[in-house]
């Protein structure tokens, strides 16, 4: 059992390493960090630019392979991911931002999973009834909508709510209100209020996907013989489905969960931008905009590690749910 998980973990770790290294190579080939300096006025001399780029280890004149090697050596010997173009270390940048993103991601994913599973089960049990159809259309609509549209729609709703109530009930710009006076409790409330919309936005998207998947997993289970057996023992249909069906239908969900985490991450980047959160998503987008290879690779590494953790967690959950894979 432990061996199984350990093996999967090593698998994921190797995959994450490959993903990060490919990200580095890809970014080095596509992004042009020099362009940022060429457009300046006065334009710095070629030597100056070269010196800056060499200092960051991103000079396009050095072969990619050499730069990659230097990056790896730097990582292994100094535990450093290099510097951003703003001359801050990528690691320090990440530590500041990671907490922000994680708070959003973890909360959003957990809520998405809970709601998604619940809606999926509900929809399957009430297949083709009105509530099932409403859930289906709702989730398709959400799935079809780009994440920034959801964010903006939520903002519009919140604004009109605030207007109707005449107080600033829901805040949605940034992580907290700058310069807020008050005790611990006040700050907590402030952050929670700021967290509300981005979390809803993420959870909505996640839940839409999960609910579709859970619904179809449940439909497979609905007609299973063991549900009939459970009913023949004296369970009502509903209770047989909940006690015997959901548990089995959750098994494939754990794998889907791991895979869908990647898309949640992508959605989170947009959500952060829309709500002006300074998280890892913003870092990724800005890194691309500013042709910052080191920052980009750092952001990808962060994502890879999250996927690594999610994947391993999914395997643990899988094994916990399904005795057939335990050894």
């Amino acid at each position, binding site marked *: 059992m432990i061996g199984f998980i350990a093996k999967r973990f090593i698998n994921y770790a190797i995959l994450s390493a490959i993903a990060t290294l490919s990200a580095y190579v890809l970014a080095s080939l596509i992004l042009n960090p020099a362009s940022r300096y060429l457009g300046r006025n006065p334009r710095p001399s070629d030597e100056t630019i070269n010196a800056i780029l060499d200092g960051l280890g991103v000079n396009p004149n050095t072969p990619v392979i050499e730069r990659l090697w230097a990056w790896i050596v730097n990582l292994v010997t100094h535990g450093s991911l290099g510097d951003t173009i703003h001359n801050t270390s990528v690691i320090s940048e990440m530590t500041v931002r990671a907490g922000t993103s994680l708070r959003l991601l973890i909360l959003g994913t957990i809520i998405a999973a809970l709601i998604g599973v619940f809606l999926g089960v509900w929809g399957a049990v009430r297949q083709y009834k009105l509530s099932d159809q409403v859930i289906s259309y709702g989730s398709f609509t959400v799935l079809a909508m780009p994440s920034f549209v959801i964010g903006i729609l939520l903002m519009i709703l919140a604004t009109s709510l605030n207007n109707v109530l005449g107080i600033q009930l829901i805040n949605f710009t940034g992580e907290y209100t700058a310069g807020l006076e008050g005790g611990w409790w006040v700050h907590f409330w402030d952050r929670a209020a700021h967290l509300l919309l981005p979390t809803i936005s993420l959870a909505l998207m996640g839940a839409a996907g999960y609910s579709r998947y859970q619904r179809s997993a449940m439909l497979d289970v609905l007609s299973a*013989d063991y549900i*009939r057996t*459970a009913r023949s*023992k004296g369970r*009502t249909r509903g209770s047989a489905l909940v006690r015997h069906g959901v548990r089995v239908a959750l098994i494939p969900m754990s794998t889907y969960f791991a895979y869908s985490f990647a898309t949640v991450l992508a959605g989170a980047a947009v959500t952060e931008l829309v709500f002006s959160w300074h998280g890892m998503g913003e870092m990724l987008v800005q890194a691309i905009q500013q042709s910052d290879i080191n920052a980009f690779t750092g952001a990808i590494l962060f994502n890879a590690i999250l996927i690594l953790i999610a994947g391993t967690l999914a395997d643990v959950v899988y094994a916990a749910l*399904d005795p057939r894979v335990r050894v």
Partner: protein
Amino acid sequence: MLTSATTTPHQPTSHLLEVRDLHVTFPQPGGAVTAVRGVNYHVDKGEFLGIVGESGSGKSVSSLAVMGLLPSSAKISGDILFEGKSLMGRSDKELSKLRGEGISIIFQDPLSALTPVYTIGTQIAEALQLHDSKLSKLAANSRAVELLKIVGIPNPERRAQAFPHEFSGGMRQRAMIAIAIANNPRLIIADEPTTALDVTIQAQILEVLQKAKDLTGAAVVLITHDLGVVAGNADRLAVMYAGRIVETGTVDQVFRAPSMPYTIGLLRSMPNLATAGHTRLVPLEGRPPQLSNLAPGCPFAPRCPAVIDACRTTEPPLTMINNEPLNASACLRVGQIASGELSRSTLYPVPEPVAAAQRAEVPPEHVMAVSELKRHFPLSKGSIFKHTIGTVRAVDGVSFQIRAGQTLGLVGESGCGKSTTIMEVLELAKPQAGQVVINGRDVASLSAKERRALRKDIQVVFQDPMASLDPRLPVQDIVGEPLTVHGVPAKERLKKVADVLELVGLDPSMASRYPHEFSGGQRQRIGIARALVTDPKIVVLDEPVSALDVSIQAGVINLLQDLQEKLGLSYLFVAHDLAVVRQIADDVAVMYLGRIVESGPTENIFDNPQHPYTRALLSAVPVPDPAIERSRTRIILDGDLPSPTEDITGCNFRTRCPLFRLMDEAAQQKCRTSDPQNRSVNGSDVACHHAEHIDLMTPA
């Protein structure tokens, strides 16, 4: 939800269960399917009722209706009374109180009937706690262990912690029985509880079911398609056809004096272990009607040899026979049949055997000789770092011969290595160990060209007629495919296809149709036609009739026999149904754990088996004759077939051998230490040290 269509007050009943005029309809896009059309029956306290019928006759639907477990789309009318109270119109919640407590059910497929993620013990305890909220978890668990012990699971404390996938099919079915009897129900419905199991396991399960019935005093409704199973167990019998009960009576009444032509045909079409091989089977031509748009009149009319004009207009009601209240039959001519005016024995014409002039000459020689054939598979573990942890000895030294124009029946429980053996033979390549000689040539010495040529001579027919035919190809392409492989020109191919279709009794004009347009029996004929199209000398038949309904089986078996005589074919016939093997085989080889433990001429093996395993196997087969069944004592084998990875020293049947237990210490020691070699005893080739003492197993 059950909804009552009748508004009349329920008449009181003294029966435990009474089903009155039950109708079940499933609305369907292509027209509603009325699966049950006016079923009436009753079960008394402690009674054992058997319900038999072919696939699709409505057996399961009518019993699910009693349990209130039909899908919500089903439209139900009529009345179901349990202990005098109607179950119609009750909510799922009310019915759930009764399910498991008053009535429980055992389903056919033990593989999928248990929830994979909970332990066996938990699932039994759940049944207990659902009906006794005061029962503590601890008490429920210990009662679950007790129940497992009652149904004969060894080591019940430990096995209660196991998950369903760690149980064999037979053990799961025992667990299902444990769940069913957990709350001492008054009625147990068993829906084909043994259909998916081997005969030796079937015998065990039926014994457990009887024991459970005796312990709880419950009445049992046993649903099956096997007339043999009911003959030995049931008190009364109901025969279903096309959604109705067409005949009912005590077991003796129905078996002795069947009075509905369908029952008569069914009984005559079944190969019977006690008589098979002496008489030709009488096929029941045609197939059951589609339930979606049923023609008026007797649904059996298209297949009935006694049909008269009136049969096509009025559907006969179930009418009492000879004023016997329990005996009834739904046939317009029941009076004539009961009085003997219409003779039961001549009702169905016995098909003529192949005329002597049409029989092919066969030289008396061996067409296939297999000796010491072995096929071991390494059992490995781990996905990245594979390492071998054992060997599966699927085939472990098998020898047999087939004479030209004759049939060798290869029998044994599932997992004993039958299929691997024939796969090895069909490879036509050098085996891992041993020798395969076909037509006098060792296949190991063949060149690639010779091997291809030999493939024409040896063909195969598989078990599942649907799965083995490509649904996207018309029948002529399917049948002609082996010819395409051998590069026969198209024109010649079509002619040959038409010929073989004719030969297997299909109209050559059907050649352009697709497999789904054919019935199960017809599909199996297509499979046989495909095997015959290359004019083979040897045909390997892997369970060719086991997927077919009894009434269809007989026709296919007769066809195989006729073809053999006309074309001089040799058959290697693999089957688990011993009655079918007795019907068709000249020689029989009995396999156990990769070995042939006994072989010899069919008569010898069936009448005078010398190996304890053969004895047990034969005694496990139910015979569709209540008198024989009652006088028989079964030899029940313990446990399941051991895994072929297990290393059993000495005789590999030792762990289950009933004879071993009867022997003295010195003799047992011999079984433990030395592997019995095949030797000739009383005309059979037997692998047992103590075959001479086999009669110890027959109780005096």
